[in-house]
């Protein structure tokens, strides 16, 4: 039988590491699974300009390394692996990672969100050969080339603006005829001579044998299809919460699958808490994710004080 832990934290973004800092300082001896993306979404970006305490800005990957160090310093046990399966129907809860079973009285889910893909077969095939979701990583390979950005939100506009620094031209392909999001970013994109817009259009295929040579778009007003020649396609069509492994275990919101929380960080299973982008579709910022990670750790600490009572009450219910 594996030893029963007080707390398992799933995820290593700002929410997970902050929960680790608070829980380890509270002597809960938490274990934290990093998942396949140690440090979370911020490691995909370069400069973070709005995290308090860094007036000069800070590199996303660097910031997340510091988060990790701080969690480790107070005794968070960090395991660089992903959680494959959970069982929240038993007490203590069970968690499996790399075929090993772990048990814990409380859980904090901080699995965040991941970028959406369009979902086309040729998009998958050409990933790394002109199809990308990381403009800051891959823009470099498209010097003096023509590229398209798919999407119309802030990330799409940020990406397009960034890409104009190296590429010859950037076309933003958007399924509506207007933009939402930040006025500042919209204005900057409209004034940038290298950026043009393809409105009311959806990418229906990615063209090219060994690498991207163009995209096929369909105008959703006229249903007409046309090809746009380009060397790269950057996809920025939002994010989805990483809740696949929790389906059927706790309540998820119908539309996109975010974790439903009540009374701050509590999920529909007592003892399972959630923090960060996985439960928050409104703010989605590093500082709010960190804040919620702190809340979850404090909520866990309080909840564990009554653990024996919770167990006794549940046993009572089963007996009658």
């Amino acid at each position, binding site marked *: 039988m594996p030893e029963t832990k007080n707390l398992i934290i799933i995820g290593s973004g700002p929410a997970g590491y902050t929960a680790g800092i608070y829980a380890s300082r509270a002597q809960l001896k938490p274990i934290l699974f990093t998942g*396949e*993306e*140690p440090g979370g979404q911020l*490691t995909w970006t370069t400069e973070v300009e709005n995290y308090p305490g860094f007036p000069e800005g800070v590199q996303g990957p660097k910031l997340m390394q510091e988060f990790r160090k701080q969690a480790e310093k107070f005794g968070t046990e960090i395991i*660089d692996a992903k959680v494959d399966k959970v069982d929240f129907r038993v007490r203590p809860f069970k968690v499996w990672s790399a075929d090993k079973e772990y048990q814990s009285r409380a859980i904090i889910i901080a699995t965040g969100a991941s970028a959406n893909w369009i979902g086309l077969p040729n998009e998958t095939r050409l990933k790394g050969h002109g199809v990308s979701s*990381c403009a*800051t*990583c891959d823009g*470099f*390979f498209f010097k003096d080339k023509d590229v398209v950005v798919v999407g119309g939100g802030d990330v799409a506009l940020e990406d397009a603006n960034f890409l104009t620094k190296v590429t010859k031209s950037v076309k933003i392909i958007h399924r509506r005829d207007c933009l939402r999001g930040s006025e500042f970013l919209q204005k900057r994109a409209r004034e940038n001579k290298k950026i043009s817009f393809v409105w009311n259009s959806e990418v229906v295929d990615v063209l090219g044998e060994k690498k991207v040579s163009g995209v096929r778009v369909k105008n959703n007003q006229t249903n007409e299809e046309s090809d746009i020649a380009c060397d790269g396609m950057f996809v920025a069509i939002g994010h989805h919460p990483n809740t696949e492994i929790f389906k059927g275990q706790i309540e998820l919101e119908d539309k996109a699958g975010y974790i439903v929380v009540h009374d701050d960080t509590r999920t529909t299973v007592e003892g399972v808490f959630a923090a960060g982008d996985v439960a928050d579709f409104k703010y989605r910022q590093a500082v709010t994710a960190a804040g919620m990670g702190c809340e979850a750790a404090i909520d866990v600490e309080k909840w564990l004080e009554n653990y024996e009572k919770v167990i006794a009450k549940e046993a009572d219910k089963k007996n009658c």
Partner: protein
Amino acid sequence: MPQELTLTDQNFKDEIKQGITLVDFWAPWCGPCQQQGPIIEELAKEVENAKVGKLNVDNNQITAQEFGVMSIPTLIIFKDGNPIETLVGVHQKEDLKKKIQDIAK
């Protein structure tokens, strides 16, 4: 203990021409590459039947271009100078060990 090799446009062909070499194409500005880096360093210390190297695409564009690298991190496993397997995106250590074992067979 073996350390990862620093590959450049100049020494690349020589370093990979014999045996199995896993090469991490990376750049300092790329976030996911910062995740891959430490994994590669550990891998270099732990594998015996292969060399492990890093190539900074910023300074060594000829080699990156030759192998069609358009996204980083990209990992390519070479055997006797020929690319055998190309992996795009961050990969975990155990995964990479297994890929190397399979190619060594």
